[in-house]
């Protein structure tokens, strides 16, 4: 599905503020898949991701009076989905365990296997996903929000609670790391072909 542009979302935001359920439905349909994927990034558990996003929309409707028309509703939703995902994680894994790259394994050990729909397709795809996952947490977050969720710098800054300038630095750093990884990968391929 095509992503709605920011004007469209601003229009829906204004309508939702005036209690228009149709605008709410439009916004839900447009952002639900992307937000579930975003929540899954933290939880690695699809039913939980779906619950979190639905909860967030319920809250949005209940607090629709507080929608600030000039601020990005998209950033607001990503922020609450992120916070709730992290809360969910904290409730479902031992507090002593870090919430970083090991979280997936920790969840596996607890019996939450990643959803089969998320299985990766090719070797390069797998490598790319691996490299993105191995990026430092903040770089990864900024990169994914920009590249995959289509948020602009101010929106990402709102979600991550840093300045837009920092967001940009994170993304550039992420691209540099990925470039290095990709170069190595290609060289290894070449070597494998030669031998």
């Amino acid at each position: 599905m095509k992503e709605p542009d920011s004007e469209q979302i601003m229009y829906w935001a204004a309508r939702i503020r005036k209690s228009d359920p149709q605008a709410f439905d439009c916004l839900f349909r447009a952002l639900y898949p992307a937000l579930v994927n975003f929540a899954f990034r933290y939880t690695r558990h699809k039913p939980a991701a779906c619950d979190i996003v639905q909860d967030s929309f319920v809250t949005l409707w209940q607090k629709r009076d507080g929608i600030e028309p000039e601020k990005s509703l998209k950033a607001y939703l990503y922020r609450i989905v992120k916070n709730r995902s992290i809360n969910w994680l904290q409730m479902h894994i031992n507090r002593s365990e870090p919430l970083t790259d090991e979280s997936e394994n920790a969840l596996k050990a607890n019996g939450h296997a990643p959803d089969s729909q998320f299985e990766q397709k090719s070797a390069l795809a797998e490598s790319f996903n691996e490299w993105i996952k191995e990026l430092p947490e903040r770089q990864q977050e900024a990169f994914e929000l920009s590249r995959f969720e289509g948020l602009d710098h101010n929106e990402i800054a709102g979600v991550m609670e840093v300045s837009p300038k920092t967001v940009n630095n994170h993304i550039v750093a992420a691209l540099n790391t990925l470039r290095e990884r990709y170069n190595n990968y290609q060289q290894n391929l070449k070597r494998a072909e030669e031998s």
Partner: protein
Amino acid sequence: MKNKKDNPLRPYRPESENGVRFIPEKEDHQEIWNLAGMYRERAQIETTEIEDALGRVHSRLDFTDTPGKNGKAAPGEKTWLYARYLVAALALIVFGGYLLFVPVTITVPHGEIATIEFRDGSTAELNSGTSLSYNRIFFGRTERNLTMNGEAFFRVVPGSETFRVHANNTTTEVTGTEFNIRSWNSDPGSETTVTVSNGGVIFLASSEPVALTAGNQSRWNLELDAPTEPAAIEHDDIAGWRERRLIFRDQPLITILRELERAYDIRIELDVPGAETETLTAYYARPVTAASVLEDITLVKDLRYAQTADGYRIFK
């Protein structure tokens, strides 16, 4: 467009102040940016899944004040449930009756062309993405009025009621003829173009009606006071889209890209500020791939393009 070296941010939309998106500066960044997009691990969420989820959200919004986890029914809620079924049944009856009087709307998916036949025997061939609506009770009985957004080729059989097509503030009236209407509200000025291939029509937009005969074309958009005078047009140009030919005559780049998006069901990002309004003429007699069209466009306009997860991106 050239960037200042010290400012890696480029306005995504020149007119908006906060819409700054990341746009890779260096070529090797660009490649990684594109590759990462192609290899995105992502769950496909089906439409039915979204609707189910929306249904659950709705039921929670209507009958609970606080977001509870499992939605356990409190004792007092049972009566509410029955009331809910009653209301739903009533709504269904009212809605069913209402449906009979509401216009039906047909929308053609991107990448496809559809033909529909009306009760009076007239037909409409609809280009990708076009939507058309009419009243299912009255159409062909007491009136023949259609409303459309998009592009369609009509074959109208003679009848006692005038056949009218409303499209983005214009009306085209006919009694029996073949003609093409192109009217996308997403095109600049919501321009409407009517081209007659057989018979004649009356084209009404703003005040002055224009009579069009076979082989003639007239245009109107929000910036014109009246429709343009009828102008002769090559017969091949009329509704070339029906044979999947692509014909662009001095059209703004943005119009052309929208057309490609609909025809090929892809998404094209144009990351070159100011390029939307540049015009281009191109003609493809045979079906071609989207990539080869973009290849030509970018060559002529001195731009570059790259594949993305769901289409292409054009940049400088």
